[in-house]
């Protein structure tokens, strides 16, 4: 593993981010819109139900960002190389597959931290919500678990892109949102219909949000659930990494790395 080469790709992703307005929008605009829409909706619901939902809903939105941001960034920054037919130059350089993957994971982490910081700051300014009031340790643990799961999803989607080419790019935007209804981000597991509960129960993301709500409502954390999220996330990440490595090798064999697109 050569950190100089990882640094080179981080530099490239930074240049893409700073040179493209849509990549900057990803970081700030959409998270802010989410925060405003859900925040105002929650304020209205709170007035009706007299139950304090602000921390639960907005906290959910803010840390859900770790799944969304990390998975989407991994896929989109890979697609960027497909779109510009740059895979040839990239993979003919000394960069190894592990360095390529590491750089993209690190960059998605950095972007997630930027968006997280922005959202927590805005939540405080607009709604006087201090997310850290539920405990810095809890926030770090929940965020880390979601980040790992987000990485697993992003790496898996990237693997599919390398296997089938950029025609499959719609997955980069849709997989995470397809998973959200079964992740119990804004509502408890018990509120789902029984068939959906069965799916959501095995989803490692669910247990992070169940525990976030537990902390917000003053209930004890179910550490078994947190552990399940971590282990599940790590297992998924390992499987996704193996799949991505296999897909890149396959792309090297069938010429997709050369063609850059199918």
């Amino acid at each position, binding site marked *: 593993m*050569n950190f*100089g*080469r990882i*640094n*080179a*790709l981080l*530099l*490239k992703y930074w*240049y*893409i981010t700073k*040179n*493209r307005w849509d990549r900057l929008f990803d970081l700030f605009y959409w998270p802010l819109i989410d925060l405003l829409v859900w925040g105002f909706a929650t304020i209205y619901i709170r007035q009706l139900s007299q139950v304090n939902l602000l921390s639960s809903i907005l906290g959910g939105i803010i840390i859900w960002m770790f799944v969304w941001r990390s998975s989407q960034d991994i896929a989109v920054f890979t697609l*960027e*190389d497909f*779109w*510009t*037919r*740059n*895979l*040839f*130059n*990239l*993979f*003919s*350089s*000394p*960069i*190894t597959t592990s360095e390529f993957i590491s750089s993209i994971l690190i960059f998605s982490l950095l972007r997630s931290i930027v968006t997280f910081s922005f959202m927590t700051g805005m939540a405080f300014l607009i709604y006087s919500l201090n997310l850290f009031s539920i405990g810095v340790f809890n926030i770090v643990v929940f965020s880390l678990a979601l980040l790992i799961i987000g990485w697993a999803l992003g790496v898996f989607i990237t693997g599919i892109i390398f296997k089938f080419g950029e025609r499959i790019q719609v997955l980069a935007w849709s997989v995470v949102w397809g998973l959200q209804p079964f992740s119990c981000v804004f509502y408890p597991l018990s509120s789902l219909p029984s068939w959906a509960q069965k799916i959501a129960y095995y989803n490692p993301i669910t247990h992070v949000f169940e525990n976030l709500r537990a902390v917000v409502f003053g209930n004890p954390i179910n550490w078994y659930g947190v552990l399940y999220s971590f282990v599940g996330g790590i297992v998924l990440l390992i499987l996704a990494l193996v799949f991505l490595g296999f897909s890149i*090798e396959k792309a*090297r*064999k*069938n*010429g997709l*790395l*050369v063609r*850059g697109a199918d």
Partner: protein
Amino acid sequence: MKYAVEVRGLTKTYKSFRKKFKAVDNLSFNIKEGEIFGLLGPNGAGKTTTINMIIGILKKDGGKIKILGKDFDENKEELKNIMNVASAYHSLTFVLSVYENLKVYAKLYSVKDYKSKIDELLKEFGIEELKHKKISYLSSGEKTRVALCKALLNDPKILLLDECTVGLDPDISEKTRNYIKKYCSDNKITILFTSHYMFEVEELCDRIAFMSKGKIIKLDTAKNIKKMIKKEVIELNLLKDYPKVKEILKEKGLNIISYESNNLIFEINEKHNISEIIADILKNGIKIEDIHIKKPTLSDIFIKISRGER
């Protein structure tokens, strides 16, 4: 003898749903250190596939590749650091400026003093003013020059150039060729070069491999390859119509291609002596205004091979 590039039994077959296509078929060749080696052939001959396998971006089905005596597969990371490639078909990242792109690649190739190296190359290719322009705003000729800068960033010992002069105007194209030539002799680097421009290959390459259907069908110097076509075409512009000239040539067993408006075109082969033929024509009182001798070019060979003639 240690070669810069040794290719042994290289094979690549592309498989789609029901079809198989052998792009490179048991290919073998050596390139000496400091040599400029050309791969020529019609579209689909396997030139680009060969280059892609040598640089490791395309996995080969069989065969061995050695770079400076080392097995490529076993020393990929080390060898890629001393190799580089420029291709007309692949771009750098559009949204990055020329400098940003070159900086990223300089870091990927662990180039130490990258700032001065980038400035030096931009100056050499006459594109200093494009330094902070995004790739997406460049013309195809400018993109090609940036791609060449990228390919020379790490002072490669082995340079692969795949139709890299496509889109360059004649002036820049000539400058680029001269630069490549000078760079190769100054730095003793080895170049594997493909191009559709025959004159370019003839001017640059020490040896040429003609490829067709994934195989090398002729490997030699340009001079020797041109001997594949043994006939030369002679064109005589006569002062007036001389019907006798046809008889003279027929007596010598020469093939007349055409004789119209005092313009006579005929073929000679290696057995004939052109000065004797001209002397005989003049002896018969026939006056010649102009003589053109058309020697076979690499283009003729290229066309011959493309049409499947041997």
